[in-house]
């Protein structure tokens, strides 16, 4: 089986518009969550979110492009540009046919749907722009990345709610590992901070009105975010031969299904995914120094996730560091695992563990080292990234220092 390297990373998210600004914010434990600035916010009960601020679409895309690019596609293209530039790859000839795009998203062009439903239902219009379908479809972002960079190999979109990005990156990993592709541009994007998107989440009664405080005893729910994270996954030998800078190596992936409840998480399903990723990577729990948690800040997720980690890690659960960066950028739903993978790269490459901010009170049901409030320096060789979706679909990645 082929080894798989990460040779490029890009992002735009509530903490920054580039990888370096995002990692700086994570190191400093800055919070990107604030008051939502969206239409009809006064009709929402939940009025906070991790919005991408200071972003002007006109600075990146012309009018024709904006007619086709939903905000989730714009975020994807911005992150892909940074990642592919870093990798130094150009896709022509044979390599183009062996390079593809596998991206995660949950809502796809949800804000395009929201805008246009509003136009036909609320404003009574009988006509919408001709490009609504290609703009809102879930695979729009993957297709535009493929068109922009001439990626002609395996390309598709994965939608598994909050695990979409991790499932996508897991597919990318296995496509290269098995030899079906040399390079896959992968990660995920989400942009559902619009009236309808927030209103739907509000209905579930799991959202916090003030802050995302994962693992803290006084946590009171999740906070939505938006943005994208995109990576270049490359055949390790291919990367090595061309002298590419290897940011990290992907060494394992596992996915499981709880087959139990549409919203409540299962300790057993999560634990099987975590142990599956370890065995796929051929490592044991003691070798893992850091886990990027799913850590949504809901009562149910955080205690279930901690119990799952404790059951797999045994005594090592007391020493492994586990943090949730959702405390800073919010829950990016289908894009969340991708932005969170940046914290994994920072741990492996820079030896800095991103904190769980907003941590106020220990919870006996989450009695792990959650790296509260302040980043920490630590040398780690292996890390895990957890994602557990509504619908009971779990996806865990294992990474190794490059």
């Amino acid at each position, binding site marked *: 089986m082929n080894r798989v390297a990460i040779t490029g990373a890009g992002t735009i998210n509530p903490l920054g518009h580039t990888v370096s600004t995002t990692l700086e914010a994570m190191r400093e434990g800055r919070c990107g969550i604030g008051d939502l600035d969206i239409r009809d916010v006064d009709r929402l*009960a939940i009025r906070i979110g991790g919005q991408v601020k200071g972003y002007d679409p006109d600075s990146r895309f012309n009018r024709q492009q904006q007619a086709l690019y939903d905000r989730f596609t714009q975020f994807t293209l911005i992150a892909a540009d940074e990642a592919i530039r870093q990798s130094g790859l150009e896709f022509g000839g044979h390599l183009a046919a062996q390079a593809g795009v596998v991206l995660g998203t949950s809502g796809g062009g949800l804000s395009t749907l929201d805008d246009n439903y509003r136009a036909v239902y609320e404003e009574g219009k009988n006509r919408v722009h001709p490009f609504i379908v290609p703009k809102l479809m879930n695979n729009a972002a993957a297709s535009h990345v493929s068109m922009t960079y001439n990626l002609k190999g395996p390309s598709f979109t994965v939608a598994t709610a909050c695990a979409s990005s991790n499932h996508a990156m897991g597919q990318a990993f296995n496509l290269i590992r098995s030899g079906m592709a040399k390079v896959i541009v992968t990660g995920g994007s989400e942009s559902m901070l619009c009236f309808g998107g927030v209103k739907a989440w509000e*209905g*579930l*009664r*799991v*959202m*916090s*009105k003030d802050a995302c405080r994962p693992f803290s005893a006084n*946590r*009171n*729910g999740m906070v939505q975010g938006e943005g994208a994270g995109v990576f270049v996954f490359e055949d390790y030998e291919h990367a090595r031969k061309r002298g590419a800078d290897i940011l990290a190596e992907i060494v394992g992936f596992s996915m499981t299904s709880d087959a139990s409840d*549409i*919203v*409540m998480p299962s300790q057993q399903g999560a634990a099987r995914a975590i142990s599956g990723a370890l065995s796929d990577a051929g490592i044991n729990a003691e070798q893992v120094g850091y886990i990027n948690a799913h850590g949504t800040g*809901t*009562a*149910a997720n955080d205690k279930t996730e901690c119990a799952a980690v404790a059951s797999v890690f045994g005594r090592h659960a007391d020493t492994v560091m586990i943090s949730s960066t959702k405390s800073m950028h919010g829950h990016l739903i289908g894009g969340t695992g991708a932005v969170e993978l940046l914290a994994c790269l920072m741990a492996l490459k820079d030896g800095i563990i991103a904190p769980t901010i907003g941590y106020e009170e220990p919870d006996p049901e989450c009695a792990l080292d959650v790296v509260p409030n302040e980043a920490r320096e630590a040398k780690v060789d292996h890390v895990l990234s957890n994602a557990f979706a509504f619908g009971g679909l779990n996806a865990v990645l294992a990474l190794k220092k490059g």
Partner: protein
Amino acid sequence: MSSSVKDKIIEIVAEQAVLEPSDISMDQSLEDLGIDSMGLVEAIFSIEESFDIQVPFNANEPEKSEFDISSVAAIVAAVESLIAEQKG
């Protein structure tokens, strides 16, 4: 306790519990009736729609909610006070 509020709440709770309204007694808790967290959230939605009120409830901290759901009678009382506050 107005009978219309009480009857409507019994009807909503009975629907979630998949029981006849006559099978519901006022001192039962939702747990006694086999209503899980999703059933609870759906029942609260039905209450808001039926009485046109906002019910303060966060599933992450049900014990901290001002909305008392400890029994069917408690829910009726809580809804009556919300109606008085919000529509009085």
